[in-house]
């Protein structure tokens, strides 16, 4: 009995921590959705682009870890800058649908650029953190929990607290919240939309880099990261598109539910249900609570 409970705890905690990795990806979507009411289809490509550049800096140019990370983060700010200048600004007065299509195009551009610059082979990313159980926890609590999962959880928590402080207590954070509520009114009192756009795209880029590092360390830095980012979709449907706490909790729910279902119900379906179980959950949310747990209101359903 105790063993069964321990096993359940292990599955649950492992799922929750893996869920923080979904939360990290979803966070990038939420940032951009808040400022421009657009689902950014290029977020997956941004994850891939940023982490591949990070690997490239380290492996092809032998730049040390920390410096390579800073360079990659800086590169994502440049990507944000270019996106604002060459994609968003010309489309300033276009409809949201047009911007949505533009983000799909931007995704292809980023995927292509990344592969052109750094090649197409799968790269290994070694963060110095193993994806195997932490001995101390295994010995003392009898739970087998991956060190990488724990790291992802801690990193996600730090990023969330950082973003929360940025939005709540800084001037540009106030500007962003104003734009998120009513972009027209914000521009009528002189809040320059282009600064806000630059901020959210840069922040989303850096969040993408962090998420990419976590995923890349687990699954290898490869093209499949683009599709992994789509896992953020059920996360957002459950958490609400415009809510940062929603992205976090949505990620945790998806992570926990998919692991628990996989272990306990998976065998009845022949296994591998974690690939689609989150989408089933998302459908139930769309049917019964379409704005998500924390969403403000439905602006667009994707």
């Amino acid at each position, binding site marked *: 009995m105790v063993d069964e409970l321990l096993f359940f705890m292990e599955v649950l905690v492992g799922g929750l921590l893996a869920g923080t990795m979904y939360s990290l990806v979803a966070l990038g979507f939420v940032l951009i959705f808040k400022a421009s009411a657009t689902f950014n289809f290029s977020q997956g490509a941004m994850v891939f682009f940023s982490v591949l550049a990070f690997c490239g800096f380290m492996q092809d140019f032998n730049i040390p870890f920390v410096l390579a990370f800073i360079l990659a983060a800086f590169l994502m700010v440049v990507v944000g800058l270019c996106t604002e200048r060459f994609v968003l600004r010309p489309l*300033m*007065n276009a409809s949201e649908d047009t911007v949505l299509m533009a983000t799909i195009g931007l995704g292809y551009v980023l995927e292509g650029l990344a592969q052109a610059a750094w090649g197409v082979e799968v790269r290994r990313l070694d963060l110095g953190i193993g994806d195997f159980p932490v001995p101390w926890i295994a010995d003392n609590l009898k739970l087998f929990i991956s060190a990488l999962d724990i790291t992802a959880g801690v990193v996600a928590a730090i990023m969330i607290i950082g973003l929360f402080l940025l939005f709540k207590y800084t*001037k540009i954070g*106030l*500007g962003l*919240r*104003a734009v*998120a*509520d*009513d972009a*027209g*009114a*914000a*521009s*009528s*009192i*002189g*809040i*320059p939309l282009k600064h806000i756009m630059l901020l959210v795209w840069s922040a989303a880029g850096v969040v993408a880099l962090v998420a990419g590092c976590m995923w890349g360390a687990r699954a290898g830095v490869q093209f499949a990261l683009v599709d992994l980012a789509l896992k953020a979709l059920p996360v957002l449907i459950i958490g609400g598109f415009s809510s940062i706490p929603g992205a976090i909790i949505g990620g945790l729910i998806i992570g926990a539910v998919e692991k628990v279902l996989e272990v306990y119900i998976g065998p009845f379906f022949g296994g591998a249900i974690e690939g689609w179980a989150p989408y089933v959950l998302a459908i139930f949310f769309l049917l019964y609570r379409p704005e998500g747990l924390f969403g*403000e209101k439905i602006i667009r359903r994707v």
Partner: protein
Amino acid sequence: MSNTSANILDIKNIEVMYDNVILALHDVSLKVPKGKVVALLGANGAGKSTTLKAVSTMLASERGKVTKGSIDYDGTSIDKQNPSQMVGLGMVQVLEGRRCFGHLTVEENIISGAYSRKLSKGDINQELEKIYTYFIRLKERRKSQAAFTSGGEQQMIAVARAMMAKPKMLLLDEPTMGLAPQLVAEIFNIVKELNQKEGVSILLAEQNTNVALKNSDYGYIIETGRVMLDGTAKSLLSNDQVKELYLGISKKGRKNFRDVLKEESLIKKKIN
């Protein structure tokens, strides 16, 4: 070089189109003298909001464009400006329908108005205290979420927020829409006070002709994108046609100035 002309705003014969096809203003000219309150009156769809948005350069975001004529603000043409530059120059528009930031607190809403100014925390608090002397009601509700305040309070938030940008000129688009008469009076009292104590020039679009004229120095009446009549507020209030068409002191079933002009030309034809 400061502008020596007596008008802070000078609109000359503007024509405005939306989407390159829909003509919203045909020919509008108006002046706002420095330190005065000017009312822009007319029914729904007459072109009041369009005129204000042409001045604040917010037309572009609605795919509108000034296609003829000129707008000079404080001695310079505005045609190369964008809304945040206009705020920097001291012209702030309070949009129709209040448009508060619902998820922000009342105080955050007001502070957001100072975004374009480089102020220290201390300066912001000082400005806030000054603003609260005009909007006493808002001080009590400073910590509430704006979405949960009443319509009148939201209108006050919108004006207070605009005042935080330290404007030389305010454009108010239907500030009394949907408000009870008592609140209408309260809002206009504040507007007058801001005008007199802070020296802010005001261009005000209203459907509430009577109250608007009683609180203004000068008035323009527009219909279907044209200025039909203008004059001092006093003269308009005592004008028979205005009384009949806009103040509801009517004799017959006339609807607007165009009908009046038609009737007059018919009479002329008969006489000839």
